[in-house]
């Protein structure tokens, strides 16, 4: 008994050492372009990416994709830490338009010409050299139709009207305070195309009025869905993709694009990444596959950069999408450069305001 026990322990140790050695050499092979680490926000969204793009890319090229989940704030924090230690382990990250300016020092400038499918497949201006358009949505005003049998609010001014539309509300605390501030200014009468530069004093004063009625400040997309499911809130400001996901679950959620801040995400390549060539291959693969973009955009209810796929959508699919003219003309104008320049001070003021 004892002998067997000892032997199995020893062989276990041997196995462990072997695995370590294997891990070391495997790491070197991946560094030569066998694996890409791709950062997105995780959850159902990441699964849709895997089902429609990651797996097919691995099949076509032999390059494996390791998905990593991180919030927007975590992405830049960790990336900066990686660059400080000189080991950038991520190959592709998800960025917002303002990040391309604010985090420019962390991002690689790549040659858009390397993405050969761009001209034939992508919408105009999809590639900026620092980012490639990934998905398009908005931060929309939504309400639970069961709580408002006579019709719910469809504008930010109505969202602020707690007498006509009573009920617990939710707004985002997800790293982009300019979204609720943009809504507040519109509720105070500012035109959706003239919000920038943001009048912060005015916006915070307007938010002060509504604050007692905002019972949840959601931090993640999953949380924003859960509080509607459990009835914790009746109306709120959430990502359009999450709102339509609730509709697909059978909930009577009404979505209004009126004055909604656009919610655009891009792929970007970190400076110092080890597999830039392989990353560009993936970006090209992502751009040029309309047959994958149709089911993918349907699964996440976001539009994507692929214009061929957009033309293949049914009218039923189109009516909810942000790029449909009836919807896109309702969106608020966003000034990514102003946001990038004022981001740090804005976040600080926001956190102070929230913590009171």
């Amino acid at each position: 008994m004892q002998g067997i026990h000892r032997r199995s322990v020893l062989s276990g140790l041997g196995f462990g050492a072997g695995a370590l050695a294997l891990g070391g050499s495997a790491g070197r092979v991946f560094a030569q372009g066998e694996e890409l680490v791709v950062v997105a926000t995780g959850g159902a969204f990441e699964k849709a990416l895997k089902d429609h793009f990651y797996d097919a890319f691995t099949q076509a090229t032999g390059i494996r994709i390791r998905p990593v989940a991180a919030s927007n704030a975590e992405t830049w924090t960790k990336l900066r830490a990686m660059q400080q230690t000189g080991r950038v382990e991520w190959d592709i990250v998800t960025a917002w338009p303002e990040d391309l300016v604010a985090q420019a020092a962390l991002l690689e400038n790549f040659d858009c010409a390397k993405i050969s499918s761009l001209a034939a497949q992508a919408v105009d201006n999809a590639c900026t050299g620092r980012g490639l358009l990934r998905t398009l949505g908005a931060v929309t005003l939504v309400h639970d139709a069961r709580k408002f049998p006579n019709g719910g609010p469809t504008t930010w001014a109505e969202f602020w009207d707690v007498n006509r539309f009573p009920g617990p509300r939710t707004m985002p605390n997800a790293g982009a305070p300019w979204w609720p501030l943009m809504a507040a200014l519109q509720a105070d009468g500012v035109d959706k195309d003239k919000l920038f530069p943001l009048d912060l004093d005015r916006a915070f004063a307007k938010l002060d009025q509504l604050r007692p009625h905002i019972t949840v400040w959601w931090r993640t997309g999953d949380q924003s869905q859960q509080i509607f499911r459990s009835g914790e809130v009746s109306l709120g400001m959430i990502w359009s993709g999450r709102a339509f996901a609730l509709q697909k679950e059978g909930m009577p959620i009404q979505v209004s694009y009126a004055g909604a801040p656009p919610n655009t995400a891009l792929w970007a390549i970190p400076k110092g990444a080890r597999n830039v060539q392989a990353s560009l291959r993936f970006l090209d693969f992502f751009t040029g596959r309309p047959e994958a973009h149709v089911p993918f955009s349907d699964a996440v209810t976001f539009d994507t950069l692929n214009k061929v796929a957009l033309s293949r959508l049914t009218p039923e699919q189109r009516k909810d999408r942000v790029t449909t003219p009836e919807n896109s003309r309702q969106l608020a104008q966003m000034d990514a450069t102003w946001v990038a320049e004022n981001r740090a001070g804005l976040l600080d003021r926001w956190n102070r305001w929230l913590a009171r």
Partner: protein
Amino acid sequence: MPASLQHEALMLAQPVSDDPRGFSLRQSLLLAAPAVLCLLAFFVVPLSTLVEQSLTSPRLGLQNYVRALGSDLYLLILWRTIRLAAIVTVLALLLGYPVALTMSRVSGRVAGLLAICVLIPLWTAVLVRAYAWIVILQRQGLVNEALLGLGVIREPLRMLYTEGAVILATTHVLLPFMILSIFSVLRTIPPDLDRAAANLGASAFATFRHVTLPLSLPGIYSGVLMVFILALGFYITPALLGGPETLLMATLIGQQTTETLDWGLAGALSVTLLVITLLLVGLFGRVLRLEGKG
């Protein structure tokens, strides 16, 4: 009479100190070595790095401490954290002491049942318990549905994402630590002392006041200390059940570490919290020890 009785009781409750069968000093050191090495590697080293960062990042000086202590917001959060930890500690003591006393007085099946009631929550993951509280406290949760059904309220109460929810759930998580600390001391008090006190004419309350309570002070001390320190650094429960208005030190430090990457400030905030904790603990220990001797 009470003073001398108390003295007697204290003498009886003293643990035996010179155990001839104990380990030698060398053996003791050897046995303690793994734990000490772990502490060095995983606590002392990171802590030193933290202190160093707080003094040197981005440059040498005290600027991070000036920022941490000069900001009314951070001071507010610090005060909120200490206040919450104190409330939780008092609640846990008031709720926990009677349970511990009962556990020490009953025997057999009832004692086992009580122990299970205390231990099962302790073995359940903190995360699971936080989600359970969400189910109970939410707008269409058990409490609101029951109160609405009974006609006590007309509109659902807002309970989730408030300081009350954080206090309730944190007390629930930390209560077993209080109960077990007090119980471990209470059960070493010989039952003869109660009978002796009664024999000398003391009422049940006088017995508790002059015998049981003073003898259980070491248990109260360790329970209060443990609950207070754990509550000061509590992270998961406040993050899930609280809102931005209940932002506490641990969450703030987490934000500075993972979201704004301001490790200098995070270090300064951590060191501040650590120093204040040590000061309060020292002060607390003095007060209780004096009381124990009086």
